[in-house]
């Protein structure tokens, strides 16, 4: 079977399975409501007028990145476990088509479906900035902020959320993931506890926001363009590495059976 056709088939099924999940929309609506409760409304209504446009757009993307990836990570965690639970994984193994294509389709499809509510919510904020500033540059800036701040973080989180439940019990992974999100992104590095927070490996996107957009009102300040590119490449590279390791592990498990 043509591998490309196989990929597009898996991709579209995974996309539709995730996109049509009511839980996806309810969860993002709930988290967005939490975000609006504090800061979001103020941001949407009055913040835009007294700041330069570029850091403003980045700040909106970064503030979303504190909460929304938690929903993405937790909702993606059951995708692989679901195949086992519904007992279709053995059927997939017997079907023609490489495991790597199946994993790539699952990763791309379910991640894209999870990104859509995030993009919609991000667009509301970007639309509000556009309405207040009457500056059409908001649109390219917002797209750039989404692509460099939110997208790498979600791709990073999504790879771990699909891969880790292969080894870990899903609720345990979800608990560890939420704990990690606080420890590795929000915890102040000066607290005495060693943390990934403030390093290049923060999917919340502080380095990209500071380096590419000059958004320095945060933990990371005055990052250079090189640091921004390094952080971006590291996040994407690790996401790819995690999926490759998952592929190896699954192949090894199949070979043992």
């Amino acid at each position, binding site marked *: 079977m043509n591998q490309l056709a196989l990929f597009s088939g898996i991709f579209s099924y995974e996309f539709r399975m995730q996109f049509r*999940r009511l*839980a996806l929309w309810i969860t993002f609506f709930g988290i967005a409501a939490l975000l609006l409760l504090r800061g979001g409304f103020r941001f949407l209504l009055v913040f835009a007028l007294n700041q330069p446009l570029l850091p403003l757009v980045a700040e909106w993307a970064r503030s979303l990145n504190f909460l929304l990836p938690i929903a993405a990570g*937790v*909702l993606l*965690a059951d995708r692989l476990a*679901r195949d086992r639970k519904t007992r279709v994984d053995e059927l997939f193994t017997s079907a023609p088509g490489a495991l790597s294509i199946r994993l790539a389709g699952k990763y791309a499809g379910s991640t894209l479906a999870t990104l859509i509510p995030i993009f919609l919510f991000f667009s509301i904020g970007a639309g509000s900035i556009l309405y207040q500033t009457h500056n059409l540059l908001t649109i390219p800036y917002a797209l750039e902020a989404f692509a460099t701040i939110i997208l790498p973080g979600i791709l990073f989180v999504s790879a771990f959320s699909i891969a880790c439940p292969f080894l870990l019990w899903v609720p345990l992974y979800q*608990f560890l993931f*939420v704990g990690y999100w*606080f420890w590795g992104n929000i915890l102040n590095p000066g607290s005495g506890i060693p943390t990934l927070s403030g390093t290049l490996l923060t999917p919340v996107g502080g380095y990209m926001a500071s380096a590419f957009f000059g958004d320095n009102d945060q933990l990371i300040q005055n990052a250079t363009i090189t640091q921004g590119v390094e952080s971006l490449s590291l996040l994407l590279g690790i996401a790819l590495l995690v999926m490759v390791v998952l592929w190896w592990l699954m192949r090894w498990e199949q070979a043992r059976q």
Partner: protein
Amino acid sequence: MYLDRLSYELKLMGKRVILTPILVMLGFALIAVFLHARAVDPSRTLSASLEIIIPLAAGIVVATITSQDNAIELQLTMPKKYDRTVLRRFLIIFGWTACIALLSGIIFYTLNLKFIPLSSPSEPVILQLLTQVLTWLAPMLWLISIGICLALLLRSRPASSALIGGIWIFEIIFKDYIAATNWLHPVFLFPTTLIPLVGIIPQAYFNIWLTTRLELIGTALAVLCISWLLLRNPESLLKTASEE
């Protein structure tokens, strides 16, 4: 008979349910040793493990275990009502996690690593221990009951876990906002470690702290009652099982 049921339930849920709180506390004990070696006072971190981390783990695990059963159709045909079975599972996990938290709290207290608010310098030891229990009991009950209720209402365990995670992070990031907003006080989950309210504090602050703890327990019990009603609705349970 009761012990047989207990051991079957434990077997069904697996060792992971028993091991999770133990591993979390062991992990934090290691972090505490590390911090102590670097001459950093570990009491706040240990308080965080009891007040913030263990309740999150308990919330996600209990919500998952109690809102699903692989043989739900069979369970609903049994003479023993399913809500009773769930109540037993809830009590096992909650009771076990509470035991681990209580034991850890006593160890922290005896090692002079307590991190609790006191209304007067000469408060009896038993009251101090009770105060320490309230620091973790209230958020644990609240997160567990919200987790079960959301899982049953939304008919989805991942949605429930994601929302618990979102609320948890929100409570940490926006702690100052919640502290400054009166109407949010009844859902102020972690004031002891985050503000922090510790040592001898004015009576007014202690009263606010105590009120928020009692309000949390009250709302948690009310939400648990709603969950219990949802558990008595077979249609909702079957849909929860099929919609994931």
